[in-house]
């Protein structure tokens, strides 16, 4: 089984690793590149725990062919915080938007993808933006509140 070198930009930095034939981006990021922040929940596109941002759009890493990101920009939770937590991360912490924490990386990336395009979303837009992410713990309200609060603080500006 031939492996292909894949060079791409991860959270602003150029990275390279070998992808196996048919390997999905989630597995590639976690084991090939060592970015453990996106999570495996289903491998079928139903839960959104693997959500990452590809060229500015939210996508499911488990359904993305790893080698298809060659030359493209990928963003994960690992790139959110700078010297301080990202406003979305602050808002999630302040609003109890995580309990077990397993859906959180996916939620954060869906939220970031929304705020990057729509800095002042309505509640309906927030609900739509996370409609591809399942959470079994919080009941979603704290997450929606956190995203709206982050938007108000200019997280998407």
């Amino acid at each position, binding site marked *: 089984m031939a492996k292909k070198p894949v060079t791409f930009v991860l959270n602003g930095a150029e990275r390279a690793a070998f992808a196996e034939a048919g390997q999905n981006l989630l597995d590639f990021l976690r084991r090939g590149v060592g970015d*453990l922040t996106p999570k495996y929940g289903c491998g079928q596109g139903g839960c959104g725990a693997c959500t990452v941002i590809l060229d500015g759009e939210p996508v499911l890493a488990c359904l993305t062919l790893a080698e298809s990101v060659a030359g493209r920009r990928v963003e994960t939770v690992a790139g959110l915080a700078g010297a301080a937590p990202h406003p979305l991360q602050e808002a999630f*912490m302040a609003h109890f938007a*995580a309990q077990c*924490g397993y859906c959180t990386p996916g939620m954060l990336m869906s939220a970031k993808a929304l705020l990057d395009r729509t800095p002042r979303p309505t509640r309906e837009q927030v609900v739509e933006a996370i409609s591809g992410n399942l959470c079994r*713990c919080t009941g979603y309200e704290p997450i929606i509140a956190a995203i709206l609060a982050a938007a108000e603080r200019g997280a998407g500006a």
Partner: protein
Amino acid sequence: MSESMIEFRKDLFADERDDRLAVIGKPVRRQDILGHVTGRSPFFDDHLFEGLLHLRCARSPHHHARIRRIDISAAERSPGVVRVLTGRDVPRNLNTLLSLLDFGIDDEPVLSEDRVRYMGEPVAAVIAESEAAAREAAAKVRVDYEPLPHVLDVEEAIKPGAPVVLDIYPGNRFIYHGKYDHQKLRFGDVEAALRAADHVVEGRYQMSPIEQAPIETCGAIAAPETNDRFVCYTSTQALFFSLATSSKVLRLPSSRLHFIGGTVGGGFGGKVDSIHEPLAILGAMLTGRPVKYAWDREEEMQVGGPRGAERWYITDGVMRDGRIVARKFVGYFDSGAYTRLTSYAIMKAVGHLPGPYTIPNVYADVYCVFTNRTPATAMRGFGITGVDFAIEAHMDKVAEVVGMNPIEFRILNAYRDGDMKAHRRIAKNCALIECCQVVAEKAGVALSPEARRASSRQGGGGERAQLPPRTGARREGAGRGLRRPRLRAKRRTTKRGRRVRSARRPRRPSRECRPPRLPPIVRRGRPNLRARRHLRPRVLPLRSRSPQSPPPPSPAPRPPIRFSSISGLRRR
């Protein structure tokens, strides 16, 4: 939860509380939330290993079948495969989870060798260089099955002639203490009370199995360490259970196991069965490399233990004025193909009956039934959520029969501080009435002045603290053909034909249990701990006596009870 989502009713029970608390009642940031929002909380799979191997199981497609032959040769030859395990590789291939608490009989193999009892039961474990290679090879395991008749419904399973799921339980019912094929609760005389009631209301309530469906699937990664130990990162909710189960099944001293867990991507009770650790560690033992065994989503949903199905038959005897005078339960828990924790779930369920109501006559028979379904496990409110649904649905039904508002009906029948419960303990710190009053207020339901005036702290105790004058015999409902408890020493004959009396066993309490009258609870000011001494667990004395007399000399010394928190465990 942000503060805006919680309403604190500090007016209720204010005199029993100190509201100057610094932490309780105020939002506090979770200590693990920084890890969650940075994606750095260390779930079991968030550890990288050089040379990690992946384990996947070949599983039964049948509900019930005999295994004639397992052929792993094609799987072994599959690309990337390092090792294929079968039951023969497991040092001790039979276990039941609660054997750690000396409860139950080992009934479940780690990898089945001669019979499968539920669809998805594992029969072989393939260990390969990648998940894809393991998946491919698992499909190449050839098993020669002889399908057997199966049973998927609890009441079908206990009918005579039903397919037997576990040979050690030929009636498809778990046997408690070697004597009864169900758990029973007896308080008062339910049959007499039903005959005297103005209305008798029957109900049948059913709950299907419910999958916990955490976003993180169950799994473990085990690896050899350099100090003759194995490390195991696991998603389990029950770290010590998983460690001890692995130790037992693998015949490894627990000192050679290093378990790391506690970061769980949603458990809800579904990560207590300790399925993954033993196989992952065994794989690490036999290959010398790190091994990951995790369910994919399909396995999590179908093979992972759900909350077990339950079926409840409730019969209430109720008077015209709304007082429930009798409640009878017959309950069936669907344990699936193996015991796991369902035997214990039922003890919790029975401890919960008849619900938060003072009912003078209560009867329950609750069965742990085996079927060819996925083995059940715990889920939030383990053992009681199903029966609570049944009880509350039934309360509404009975309220309708007597023509009462369902909230008032509950307030009328609610237990109050000082009432005797069906388990012969006094109720304390009751709050159902106050909850009902707040519910009525929120829902805009008008309550009568009596219901509005009612309080958990008034009206209880006194006559309501008394035990019923008569309770049904313990032997009622004993399983047929089971050993009866021996109350007299067995007589033996000497060689000369003379009868010899061996030493008498200590006399057991008489059948009609009559614990002593209990002093009332003092509620004012600081709790009177002396008055509450009777509430601490103690051995029942042999005779009625007044509380003032000194305790009688204890009977012949008994060996210490191992675990007093779960009643009725087999004592050595």
